[in-house]
């Protein structure tokens, strides 16, 4: 046995542990991935503040494109329309999704549950272009039959594809909820409705809010279905931007994009705060 003392030079330095998890090159690719994901978006945001016409050459800082976008009537109307549709779709979809989540979660299997699941998640599975075409045909015939040409079509279409996005967080929250709470309420003489009002709903509220938030973001971002369902003069912000692509691109589009991006970011942060609160409370 070699009598190696603890302070021989070979062993005195601190060795790096053998890292079990490490895979060579993975970290580099991952960092590259994050750079690639963000570089174009950040460039887009930066050039929304460009003083010049170009989206490639920097000609000084300015917020003039935001002014130009704000004063553009078409943009104003499209923005307002986007918000109205998103708010309505989010409200409708969270109400129906909450009801459906209560009807399909924690009740055990029942006849038709799989069918309901499939229907609710259908917008996640069917390519959007197919749904868009279907809605175009369907709503066109209703328009002819009723003569109604308002925002209702867009709101119904948006509410429908928002349902799964509202449903999933609510369901997750319900599944994480202690079922004995409602039993305890019933034991303390609460009727089913009172137990729901006083116990289930308050506990479910963060999930519903999170679902509504996601639904709002999804509606706000939609291009394809809106493009097919809208009547003339019913542009939302995304379809307005898509229409602008045929013309010369100015940083005005960057400014609109940045504003939308900022709104999405705010809503997402609220969503994460809501779901985070859920996790920490259930701990």
């Amino acid at each position, binding site marked *: 046995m070699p009598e190696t003392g603890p302070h021989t030079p070979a062993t005195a330095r601190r060795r790096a542990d053998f890292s079990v998890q490490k895979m060579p090159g993975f970290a580099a690719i991952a960092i590259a991935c994050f750079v690639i994901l963000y570089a174009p978006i950040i460039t887009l945001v930066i050039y929304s503040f460009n003083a010049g016409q170009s989206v490639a050459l920097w000609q000084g800082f300015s917020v003039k494109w935001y002014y130009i976008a704000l004063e553009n009537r078409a943009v104003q109307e499209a923005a307002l329309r986007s918000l109205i549709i998103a708010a309505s779709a989010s409200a409708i979809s969270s109400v129906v999704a909450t009801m459906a989540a209560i009807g399909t979660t924690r009740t055990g299997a029942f006849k038709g549950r799989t069918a309901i699941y499939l229907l609710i998640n259908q917008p996640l599975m069917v390519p959007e272009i197919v749904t868009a075409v279907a809605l175009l045909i369907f709503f066109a015939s209703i328009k002819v039959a009723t003569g109604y040409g308002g925002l209702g079509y867009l709101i119904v279409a948006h509410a429908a594809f928002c*349902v799964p996005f509202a449903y999933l967080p609510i369901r997750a929250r319900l599944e994480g909820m202690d079922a004995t709470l409602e039993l305890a309420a019933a034991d303390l003489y609460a009727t089913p409705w009172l137990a729901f009002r006083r116990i289930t709903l308050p506990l479910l509220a963060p999930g519903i809010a999170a679902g509504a938030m996601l639904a709002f973001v999804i509606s706000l971002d939609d291009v394809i279905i809106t493009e097919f369902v809208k009547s003339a003069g019913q542009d939302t912000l995304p379809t307005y931007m898509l229409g602008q692509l045929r013309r010369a691109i100015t940083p005005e589009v960057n400014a609109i994009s940045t504003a939308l991006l900022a709104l999405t970011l705010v809503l997402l942060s609220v969503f994460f705060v809501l779901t985070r609160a859920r996790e920490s409370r259930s701990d």
Partner: protein
Amino acid sequence: MAGKAQVDPPGGYEAAANAQRLHRNWLLSLPAIVLLLIGASGPLLIVLVYSFLHPGDYGGVIWKPTLDAWFKIFFSVDIFDETVHLADAHLSIFWRSVKLSLLTTLITFGFGFPTAYFIATRPKSQRAAWLFLITIPFWTNLLIRTFAIMEVIRNEGIINTWAIRLGLIDQPIQMLYTEGAVLLGMAYVYLPLMVLPLYAAIDRFDFHLLEAGYDLYASRWQVFRRIVLPLVSPGIVAGSILVFVPSLGAYVTPRVLGGGKKMMIGNFIELQFGQGQNWPLGASLSMLLLIVVAVALLVYVRTISRDRADA
């Protein structure tokens, strides 16, 4: 016996309670069902019906049944001698759609797997932040992201402008409106869809198994090939389906980055309802796309359930 005085409901109390629960659950789900039947699923049936009708002269349909639209997906009839040919134009669009979707899936996997692995192996306190960085692009408007790519690669875009300024090239390189641009754009916008399910799978992975692998003389590559990959394969299938399905039906990205020339199925379908004025053909193409997607999803569900059965 006090209980004897009461008459049990038919099938007993338990059956009655079950029936009541069934009733309640369906009633609660009803608004969602109605909304989705009107706003999503129901109209698909109309598309199916339309795919078996004759086209109207200026859009719309003539209510006379025919298989013409389905036939025309793959074949064309020569107007002069009425000979039947394969519809080359259509097939090249399908081929491009499938090819670009497969390539998109491959590229996103190549970048997405190391990224998901990287996030899953961060200290627990950092993971949520890294994941958030992936989720932001995921929830960011697809149009805006496509748009951001366009601004980078178009002739007056940042790459060409700076390459010319730095004297690397004299003329801008045409990158926009090429297949490469569509591929780049799709890989860019769908990358988070690959990373998220992969992360979920790797996060569930028991890293003690890696210790066992190294302890049993496996090299890094062997540990990766023989232990990591097989165990996260459900996540790989999920991520691939999640990228492949929307790629196949992509509309915005090929329209913006491919222009009118590098069409994919989605744009071709739209064309039938716009300038093409052939609604039944558009309908049959939509149904075809739906069938392909359904097959992909079935593969996915079977993989998942097989995995569950193993566990």
